[in-house]
């Protein structure tokens, strides 16, 4: 147990609970972005080899693509209604 991992873990736990409790749809995306920063850092600190860095980069870019699509759909759904 390292002090660096403990700090990142506490922030990730807080974000997971706040995603579950917030009512607004757009603010959940902000918390989800912060959570994926935390998980990407934890992956790199856990695996500790260059392959772990590749996994972290791939995961982060793909999760950004996914939240981009969700935000675009919220705007489109507001337009239709």
């Amino acid at each position, binding site marked *: 147990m390292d*002090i*660096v991992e403990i*700090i*990142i873990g506490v*922030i990730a736990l*807080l*974000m997971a609970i*706040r995603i579950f409790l917030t009512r*607004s749809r*757009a*603010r959940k*995306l*902000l*918390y989800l*972005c*912060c959570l994926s*920063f*935390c998980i*990407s*850092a934890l992956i*790199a*600190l856990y695996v*500790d*080899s*260059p392959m*772990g*860095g590749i996994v*972290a*980069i791939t995961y*982060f*870019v793909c999760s*950004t*693509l996914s*939240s*981009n699509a*969700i*935000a*675009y759909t*919220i*705007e*489109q759904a*507001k337009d239709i209604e």
Partner: protein
Amino acid sequence: MEIVEIIKVVVAGIICWLNFVLIDTYFGLPEKPGVLGAKTIGEKIRDIGGNIHGGYFMGNIVCSPDASAGTLLASIMSYLMGVEGGIIAALLVWIGNRLCADPGYAGTIGALTITAIIYLLSPIIEAKYFIAGMVLAIFTIQGFEHKYASILLGKIAKKMNRGE
């Protein structure tokens, strides 16, 4: 010894905060929403009482990997591989930026500057502390309190002549 490590994390966090906020503001993130999803997040932030330009800043961070992602990924790769890792991270961040329909100036320049800073500061603060510092810095903007963070970002944008 724990006190020394916590002080190192906080100092690294302040350096990362200044790096990515200044670069993102200079390349015009608060000025206009780059993609359609950033617009709805900015209007939502304005509805709860924040600043619209700070809201556009937050929405652009969510919708495409900008200097914040460049800072985090370059510090990860330079913790694992040294200086060359930072250059590889800059290349991959550029590809991710173009996939999200963004020009990609902010991400690559942020990655290169944080690589240079880590290389210069490596005898004092190791690259491991910069990872935790970056997570702490993104927590103060995206996770802690949206209203006051957007007002602060709006003031910085007004001072640097980007947006109103």
